């Protein structure tokens, strides 16, 4: 590894943090309804939307109405997307004359996109028309991301406000997320990507002559389509559903190292920036920094493990006399190399993005473990836009509670007493994903239908299933590949897992927001546990680690850990 390779990761982290701060401040202004640089342009459009929908933007909701609005909106989105996929052959913009999507796959895909998971059991270019991609998937890419941000903003309001039931208006938060944040950033990113060569057209697939014919192959069909617009929001909204089957490993989605770097930054950009937004909205920037530091430390450590493991290459190949100085290059793009592939693989699983620029299935066992564990920690290391931070705040509440009991005081966070109800809700948020992942994996391994989809043998095959449910059960959408997910069994079981992980978590989070908003704020006293110190950072990391480690180490031991041990003795799977 040369010094340039080493430098890439620090450069990535520094650029990410530099971009996050101004964006975070801007988002806070948007949600506080203050004037900002886009107000003049966007505000008339925003007002037009409210007028057309008959919404009074000053009419705030309590948590139940907020939640019901969100659920109803998601349900409508689900039905719309499901029907669109089922009848795509009758709809326009289908130059390839692609067939209607099967019911199970439509169900899975629709759930996948409304939950911000973007698990793909389909191949974009072989299954979906341009119309389905643009009107179906891209729209949900925006809306599911905006919903996540809206829930977070409501929770923050619950923490900040006191003696009230009102935690904001869902429609306003949703509209503002899309119009002020996701749309302008996406346009910016799409233009940047087009400049690097990402395609954006409605042509039929092109058949071209290959430059270097091998094995008698002289002609190749190149898929076309409006890729740039979808790739931009897929990265920014932590969606991850690629336009093409191989996602951002495809040259038309991610052609150059620069486009790769920009796409990597945009994976974590909004989740990182939201910590600043949080600090600003609770009027204590240090609270946001604490969360950001915890996330960044986890991210750095796991990415370092992944880079190190990938740099070692595959001892099996080394034994065959193959040069392994370029690291483990199986399943990787030569234009990115192993460092950028390792950073991407952990960034995409840290944020619940799930896009890939290399095949996760071909990572070294430890590299795969880093990616899988990122998801199993509950998608709180950056996590999805909005969802990552509200998941993290549930962990913060648990950490504050345990620490409070240790010093013998009633726990409080930012002036709000943490009591039985809050503990119940926070425990649910932590509990549900773990149960979903473990039960899902167990069911898949006990049924023939589940075992039929497994491609590789041994611990690698086990990892495939565990990875799939870790991904769906935490709304990530990253796939280990290998596993054949487009079967009725996986379409439905993974669909249920995604639904559970998204909406069964939003319910307790909204309840938490409602219960905190009603409470009176207690002034800080000498006995208040400060939640912005190094000690608390350490403590919060410990709590996340203990829950994440104890829940999954037995399972991981049967997958990547045993595989790593066997790799040492020269056994491959």
């Amino acid at each position, binding site marked *: 590894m040369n010094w340039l390779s080493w430098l890439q990761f620090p450069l990535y982290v520094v650029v990410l943090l530099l971009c996050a701060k101004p964006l975070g401040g801007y988002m806070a202004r948007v949600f506080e309804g203050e004037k900002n640089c886009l107000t003049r342009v966007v505000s008339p459009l925003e007002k037009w939307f409210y007028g057309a929908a008959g919404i009074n933007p000053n009419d705030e909701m309590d948590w139940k109405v907020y939640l019901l609005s969100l659920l109803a909106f998601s349900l409508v989105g689900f039905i719309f997307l499901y029907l669109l996929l089922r009848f795509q052959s009758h709809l326009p913009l289908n130059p390839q004359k692609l067939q209607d999507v099967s019911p199970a796959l439509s169900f899975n895909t629709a759930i996948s996109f409304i939950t911000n998971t973007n698990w793909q059991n389909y191949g974009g270019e072989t299954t979906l028309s341009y119309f389905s991609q643009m009107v179906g998937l891209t729209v949900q890419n925006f809306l599911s991301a905006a919903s996540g941000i809206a829930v977070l903003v409501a929770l923050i309001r619950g923490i900040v406000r006191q003696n009230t039931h009102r935690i904001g208006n869902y429609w306003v938060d949703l509209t503002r997320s899309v119009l002020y944040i996701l749309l302008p950033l996406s346009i910016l990113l799409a233009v940047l990507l087009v400049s690097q060569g990402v395609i954006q057209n409605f042509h039929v697939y092109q058949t071209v002559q290959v430059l270097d014919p091998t094995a008698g192959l002289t002609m190749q069909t190149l898929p076309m389509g409006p890729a740039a617009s979808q790739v931009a929001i897929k990265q920014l909204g932590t969606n991850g559903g690629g336009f093409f089957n191989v996602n951002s490993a495809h040259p038309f989605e991610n052609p150059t190292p620069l486009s790769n770097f920009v796409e990597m930054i945009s994976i974590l950009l909004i989740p990182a920036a939201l910590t600043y937004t949080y600090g600003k909205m609770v009027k204590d920037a240090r609270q946001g920094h604490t969360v950001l530091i915890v996330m960044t430390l986890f991210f750095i450590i796991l990415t370092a493990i992944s880079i190190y493991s990938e740099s070692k290459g595959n001892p099996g190949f080394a034994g065959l006399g193959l040069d392994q100085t370029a690291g483990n290059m199986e399943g990787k793009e030569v234009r990115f190399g192993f460092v950028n592939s390792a950073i991407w693989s952990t960034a995409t699983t840290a944020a619940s993005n799930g896009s890939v620029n290399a095949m996760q299935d071909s990572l070294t066992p430890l590299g795969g473990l880093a990616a899988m564990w990122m998801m199993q920690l509950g998608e709180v290391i950056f996590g999805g836009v909005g969802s990552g931070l509200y998941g993290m705040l549930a962990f913060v509440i*648990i950490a504050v*509670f*345990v620490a*409070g*009991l240790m*010093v*013998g*005081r*009633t*726990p409080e966070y930012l002036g709000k007493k*943490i*009591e*039985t109800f*809050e*503990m*119940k809700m926070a*425990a*649910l948020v*932590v*509990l549900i994903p*773990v*149960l979903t992942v*473990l*039960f899902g*994996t*167990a069911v898949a*391994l*006990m049924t023939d239908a589940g*075992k039929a989809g497994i491609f590789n*043998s*041994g*611990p690698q*095959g*086990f990892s495939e299933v565990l990875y799939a449910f870790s991904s769906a059960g935490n709304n990530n959408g990253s796939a280990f590949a290998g596993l054949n997910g487009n079967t009725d069994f996986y379409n439905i079981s993974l669909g249920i897992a995604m639904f559970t992980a998204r909406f069964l978590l939003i319910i307790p989070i909204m309840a938490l927001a409602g219960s905190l908003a009603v409470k009176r704020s207690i002034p800080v*006293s*000498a*006995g208040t546990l400060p939640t912005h110190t190094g000690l608390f950072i350490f403590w919060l990391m410990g709590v996340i680690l203990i*829950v994440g480690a*104890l*829940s*999954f180490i*037995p*399972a991981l031991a*049967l997958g990547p850990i045993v595989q790593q041990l066997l790799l040492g003795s020269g056994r491959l799977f």
Partner: protein
Amino acid sequence: MSGLTRTTNLSQNSIFRVAIMDAFKKLNPMHMVRNPVMFVTEIGSLLTTILWVQALAGHGEAPTGFIGVIAVWLWFTVLFANFSEALAEGRGKAQADSLRKARKDTPAKVLPVVYENLEKAQKGCHILSSTKLNKGDLFLVETGDVLPADGEIVFGIASIDESAVTGESAPVVREAGGDRSAVTGGTQVLSDWLIVRVSTDPGEGFLDHMITLVEGAKRQKTPNEIALSILLSSFTIVFLVVCITLYPFSKYSVEVAGQGTPISISVQVALLVCLIPTTIGGLLSAIGIAGMDRLIQHNVIAMSGRAVEAAGDVDVLLLDKTGTITLGNRQAVEFTPVHGINGKELAEAAQLASLVDETPEGRSIVVLAKEKYGLRGQSLGSSQRAPSGMHFIPFTAQTRMSGVDYNGTNIRKGAPDTMIEMVIAGNGYIPAELKETIDRI
């Protein structure tokens, strides 16, 4: 609460013995289910025991000795948790018992009728245990007696140390008639005597309430405890699922590897008990009770676990009373002479005047004079004969002063306002600085 400190006298051994018995009694699943973590552990113990018996019969899923050891460890875990809970409860019970004993030990001098003369009353009374007092009974209390029950004064006036009840360190005067005639059981008469009519039925007095508090305190779960058990329960559920799903995982791994055996139930149970928060769960109730026990050792009665938590949350303690909290004897700590009199002269006079003052205050003056100036005053009870020529005037609640007449010299000591009144009545001179000094103190 002097009665409370007697707990230590109770044999620790007997508490241990009772706790061990209770540890087994608490194995009842109906009791265990209230603590989900330990309940799961008990089920695990039961399961491994059955597996052990099965192994003994020759159908073991793992080596018999291995299962046996796990079963023993698990039972030990459950029993130890029960034992610690029983031990903590036992101490609480011991507190209540000692209070009850204090209650029983307090004799009541029961009178048939109201005598308006102390000697007559002393002759006419008979001793009865205070627990046998009924509403409407009459009893006599003299200097130094502890009131056996709550009641209404029907005759007499006395100063009473009510610090145990009110926290006020200065004695208060209670007399028949008016709104200052109620007295509380457990308080002590400092001077004079009273005839009191019992105003509560047995078992309803102040002391009885206190006993029920000490006993009943452990029964309520505190809000934090409830929140904690939710956290513990959810961890238990997570780890339960972790262990249960480990079986299909390992079964699959064995299938594809074609070697090894799936995880045995005994190992699963052992792993589960290691993962779930057994330590916190097992000791949770014991921690709560221990907290109250600690407070009781500092003579604070926590009426519930909630109060212990509240005690942890206290930042500032505001009191509407001056003086020492709950310790009912005011002590002299300093002699402050005025108007050219030196300290030793003052101490001598004060000591002489206090010789027959049986209140803690009076006694402390004698002690202080001895400590500070080496003045040896012979303590003289009111019943003892005074040395010739000396005429002692004992402290009473009415006069609020005591003193001695000797060779025509009158030495008096008492409350500031009574003393000033007396001096003015005798055409004496009050130095201006005296008033300032009093106000300052």
